Every structure is written in structure tokens, then in C-alpha cells.
């Protein structure tokens, strides 16, 4: 029997698969932390502007270019870029669109295993913490943060067994193919995820004030910490005359006390940080644009592969918007109302402020659930929700690699699954073994999960707007479209999006590579650069070597493939 080309089964299925790819840990952990840090109102303004200027345009460009390349028989970025641009160099640049999801999968599946492990431990009642230190120690031991090799263990409170389960689950689903694997799983997982999130949301919004002796720890203040547009901070003056923020106050009674308390002191003050002041902070724009980027899964090389399996008459404009809106709903309406309000209700603003994504998710929230009525049940639900979100994302990271290997080596799915399984197993083992200070994971996330995503996104919007041409791009996008892209997006996609991306990328490099602080103007070398050149770290260098090896392998396969020398396999 002749091999049939792979395809999606239904429109809803492909939308849920793309939405599943986008909805991940960032929706429930990263977004609330970022919004609270930069002030709810100001952050949301920058967030929605970034959504319109870069999120939607890159999303539509990826959907349109992917389907266009798919018509010519290509399902991975090297073939699609080569076909669209008709320039041989772009097939090598397309390797980035395969490298990003494959490398991210190597460490993302490790984090996915944390989520499964936490949900199982809540279900079995092993998460009875009494302090944040308990919770942090559990996390440290669970992922082996203390020393290399410590994460490899197969007990209930060690990550090994969960990693094995999620790794096998991912590859079983990916082996079953697009419609019977990815689409089928997302069709059930996404509605389940939303249902669980709504259940947890109802629980969080009815928490009230759990501890009467601490009246400032309540849901209202939790929501205020997340959404209040103006912030009140207590600042102390340093010897050089500068003021540094000591703490943030949300509760009205506490604010009145602090104002009265500092009124007579010359070196302490309560200051109101306005929306306007926050919007002048370049760091806020960087955070908002970055969140849109990573949340929508644009520039990952995933959407372009997924949409390549659509036919010419299938809609991409409404599908793209629907998948994007599903992600935004999960992020803003669910993630924005669950995580921080729950955390502040039990730990107060001081216990939550400044926690990073992992700190909030795996140190603070377990402590919150441990103190909540029916906490084991809701803890299980929350981490199972994160687990589902992570599986739908990790599945999407495998498909570009599978498609590329099938295309480049002319092998069948079973062989490509085995080949990619071997590559990702080695990479994942590397991340898990070098667990001390999560150095391997952190290094790979920085250079691939952030740096290369900026590069690929810029590349894609430039190809769409300038090489393919925005008029031709719109013509391709509108084939079979259920709705039309507003005309103003022609200007946005040609001029504004690339410019906005370049500005954000330049700011990102200044802040994260050269360590520039936009508010103080001081610069200090970033830890990632220091790990490579100033105080060379063996694990950081090995992580880069692993990325380089996989990149070289992909480039080698592209160079060997005669199909990429033609414009279209079907020509």
C-alpha cells in the first residue's frame, strides 16, 4: 500500500494542536510573575500592543508560509524557506527552525517530568510542607539541584521515573502520527486543561482570608498585587542619595500605616509608581514583548510545520487567530487569576514578590496548596494541569524534527521517531545528569530558547514581508480563508513588526548579554557570557557543544539532500 501523506483530521483538531503547543507553563507561571513585577495595567498595555505588532503578524506569517511550503511537499523549515525564498542560503537558516524545537524538547521534557512528579506526590500525600524552606528542599532534592547526577533516581520523590514515563508517552503519541497522536491527544487534553483551570480558579476566588490573624493576606490583595496599575513601594535612601525599593504594599490599611510611619522619617518614604512611569521603563516593554513571543510559540518552528499539513483550501487566518485567542484566554483569564492571588492569599506580597517562574511554581505554590483545605486534591489538579499543558507543548516540539528527518533522509516515521528519540534521549540525559544549579538547562534555554527564537522570528517576518512580498503573502494567506486579515496589517507586517522585533532584540542583547540595567544605566557582564569567557564553566561549554553538534548534523543533512536543491519536490 502506498504511503499516504500525513494530514490533520479536523479544523478544530489543528486549532487545538496549535493552541496546545502555545499553552504551557509560561501561561500559568511566567505571565503572572511578569505582570505583577511590572505593574498590571502598564504591563497589560505593552502586552496587548506587542500582541498586535509581533504576536499576531508572526503567527499569521508562519501559518501562511507553512501551508504554502506544504503545497510544494515540504514540511520542515529548511525546505519551506528554500521553496519560498528561492535562495539556497535560506535552507541552512531554516535549520534553526528544526534546531530550536529539538533542543528545547531536551530540557522541556525534564520540566514536564517535574509537573507529573509533583501531581503524583500531591495525590499520594507526600507534600505536607510547613515552610517555604521545606518546599524548596523538596524541589532541590527532586531535581538534583545540589550536585550533578543527583537527579537520577527512581523513587517516588525523585524525577527519574517520571522522566521515563513522559519521554515514552511523548514518543508513543508522536509515533501514532499527526491525527491519531498529536491531534487526538490535544482534542481531549485541551478541554480537560481548561476545565481543571476553571475548577482551580473557583477554589482560589473563594479562598477569602484564610488566616484571620493576618487580614492583609486575602484574595482581594492577591488580585490587587497582580492587576493594580499603580504600585506603592516603600523606599529607603542610600548614603549616595539614591533610593532603593524595600518592599511593595498592596493592602490599604498597611499602606496607611506605612505612610504614617514614614511621614516623619527623612530616609524612608512611600512612593506611588504611576502607569506613565512604568511605561517609560524599557525593561517593561522587553518583558511584555518577550512574554508574547514565548507564550504564542511563534518563532519556534512549530506552527510552520503544523500548517504545512493543511491543504490549499484550508483556512489559516481564522485558525491562527483561534489558536492564538485560546492561548490568550488560558494566559490572561485563567493564569492571571489563579497563580498570584492564591500565593498572596497564603504567603502575603512579601512571600511572593521577586520569585522567578520556577520559584513561584515549584517552591511557593506547593506550599500554598499544602496549607489549603483539600490542598492535596487541588495541588494534584494544578500540577496535572501543568503536566497536560507541557505534554501538548512537548509533542509539538518533536514534529518539526520528525518531519525534517523524514524529508532529509527519506526514511519512514518509525525510523525518524527512532532517530530523533536517540538524539533527544542523549540531550535529555545530559540535562538531567548536569542538574547542579540547573546549569545545562539554563544555558540551553538562554541560547536556544531565547536567543535563537528572536533570530527565527525576525527571519520569518522578513521572509514574509520582504522576500515573499507582503502582497503575495496576503494572497497566499487568504486562500480558503474564513476571515480576512485587516489591511493595516500589510503595513504592520512589512515595516512595524521587523522594526519592533529588531528594537526588542537589541534591548534584549543589551540587557541579557551585556548586562545593561536600563533604569540605572549600569552595565555588568551577564552570567551567561561570564560562564563562557570570563569564568569558563565546563557544563555551559558542553551545553553549547551539544547545541553545535546537533546544528552541524542538521546542516550536513540539508547539504546532502537533493530535494532542497530544487524549488519544489513536485516541480
Amino acid at each position: 500500500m502506498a504511503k499516504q501523506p500525513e494530514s490533520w483530521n479536523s479544523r478544530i483538531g489543528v486549532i487545538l494542536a496549535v493552541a496546545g503547543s502555545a499553552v504551557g507553563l509560561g501561561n500559568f507561571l511566567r505571565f503572572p510573575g511578569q505582570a505583577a513585577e511590572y505593574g498590571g495595567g502598564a504591563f497589560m498595555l505593552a502586552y496587548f500592543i506587542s500582541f498586535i505588532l509581533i504576536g499576531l503578524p508572526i503567527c499569521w506569517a508562519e501559518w501562511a508560509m507553512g501551508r504554502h511550503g506544504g503545497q510544494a511537499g515540504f514540511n520542515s523549515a529548511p525546505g519551506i524557506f528554500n521553496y519560498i525564498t528561492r535562495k539556497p542560503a535560506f535552507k541552512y537558516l531554516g535549520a534553526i527552525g528544526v534546531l530550536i524545537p529539538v533542543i528545547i524538547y531536551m530540557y522541556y521534557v525534564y520540566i514536564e517530568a517535574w509537573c507529573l512528579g509533583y501531581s503524583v506526590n500531591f495525590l499520594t500525600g507526600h507534600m505536607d510542607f510547613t515552610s517555604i524552606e521545606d518546599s524548596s528542599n523538596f524541589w532541590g532534592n527532586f531535581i538534583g539541584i545540589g550536585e550533578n547526577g543527583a537527579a537520577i533516581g527512581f523513587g517516588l520523590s525523585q524525577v527519574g521515573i517520571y522522566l521515563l514515563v513522559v519521554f515514552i508517552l511523548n514518543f508513543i503519541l508522536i509515533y501514532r502520527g499527526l491525527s491519531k497522536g498529536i491531534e487526538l491527544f490535544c482534542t481531549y487534553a485541551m478541554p480537560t486543561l481548561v476545565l481543571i483551570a476553571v475548577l482551580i480558579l473557583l477554589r482560589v476566588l473563594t479562598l477569602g482570608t484564610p488566616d484571620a490573624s493576618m487580614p492583609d493576606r486575602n484574595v482581594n490583595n492577591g488580585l490587587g498585587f497582580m492587576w493594580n496599575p499603580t504600585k506603592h513601594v516603600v523606599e529607603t535612601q542610600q548614603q549616595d542619595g539614591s533610593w532603593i525599593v524595600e518592599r511593595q504594599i498592596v493592602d490599604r490599611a498597611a499602606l496607611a500605616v506605612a505612610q504614617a510611619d514614614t511621614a516623619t522619617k527623612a530616609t524612608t518614604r512611600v512612593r506611588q509608581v504611576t502607569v506613565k512611569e512604568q511605561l517609560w521603563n524599557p525593561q517593561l516593554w522587553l518583558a511584555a514583548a518577550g512574554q508574547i513571543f514565548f507564550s504564542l510559540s511563534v518563532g519556534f518552528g512549530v506552527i510552520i510545520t503544523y500548517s504545512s499539513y493543511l491543504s490549499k483550501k484550508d483556512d489559516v487566518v481564522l485558525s491562527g487567530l483561534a489558536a492564538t485567542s485560546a492561548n490568550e484566554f488560558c494566559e490572561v483569564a485563567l493564569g492571571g487569576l489563579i497563580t498570584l492571588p492564591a500565593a498572596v492569599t497564603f504567603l502575603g506580597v512579601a512571600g511572593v514578590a521577586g520569585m522567578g517562574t520556577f520559584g513561584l511554581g515549584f517552591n511557593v505554590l506547593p506550599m500554598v496548596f499544602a496549607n489549603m483545605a483539600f490542598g492535596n486534591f487541588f495541588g494534584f489538579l494544578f500540577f496535572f494541569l501543568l503536566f497536560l499543558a507541557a505534554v501538548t507543548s512537548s509533542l509539538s516540539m518533536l514534529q518539526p524534527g520528525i518531519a525534517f528527518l523524514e524529508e532529509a533522509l527519506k526514511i519512514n516515521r518509525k525510523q525518524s521517531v527512532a532517530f530523533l528519540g536517540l538524539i533527544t534521549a542523549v540531550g535529555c540525559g545530559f540535562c538531567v545528569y548536569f542538574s547542579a544549579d540547573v546549569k545545562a538547562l539554563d544555558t540551553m534555554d538562554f541560547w536556544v530558547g531565547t536567543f535563537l527564537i528572536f533570530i527565527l522570528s525576525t527571519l520569518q517576518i522578513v521572509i514574509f514581508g520582504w522576500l515573499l512580498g507582503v502582497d503575495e503573502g496576503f494572497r497566499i494567506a487568504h486562500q480558503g480563508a474564513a476571515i480576512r486579515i485587516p489591511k493595516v496589517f500589510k503595513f504592520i507586517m512589512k515595516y512595524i513588526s521587523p522594526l519592533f522585533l529588531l528594537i526588542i532584540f537589541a534591548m534584549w542583547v543589551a540587557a541579557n548579554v551585556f548586562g545593561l540595567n536600563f533604569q540605572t544605566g549600569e552595565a555588568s557582564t551577564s552570567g551567561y557570557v561570564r560562564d563562557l569567557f570570563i569564568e569558563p564553566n565546563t557544563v555551559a561549554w558542553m551545553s553549547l557543544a551539544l547545541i553545535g553538534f546537533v546544528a552541524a548534523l542538521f546542516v550536513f543533512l540539508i547539504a546532502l539532500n537533493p530535494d532542497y536543491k530544487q524549488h519544489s519536490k513536485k516541480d
Partner: protein
Amino acid sequence: MTSSGWIILALSVGSVSLLFIWCIYKVLSTPHETEHIHGFEQATPDE
């Protein structure tokens, strides 16, 4: 939470919820949108 906080919350949550609902409505109400695109694959791609 301040009243301006409630406004920001309502505008943000309301706008993304409305967009999401409109998209679902549009996908489900557009003719042929919910029909199978290519028919079920009964076997894994290699079979």
C-alpha cells in the same frame, strides 16, 4: 484591589474572553469548518 485594578482586570480578561468566544463561534458557524478535512487515518503513517 483598587477600582482601577478592577477596570484593568475586567478589560483584559473581558477582551481575551470575547475574542476567544468569537473565534469559537466563527469556527463552528462557518460552513464546512467542522467537517473532517481529509478523513480519519486509521493506521499509523507507516502502515
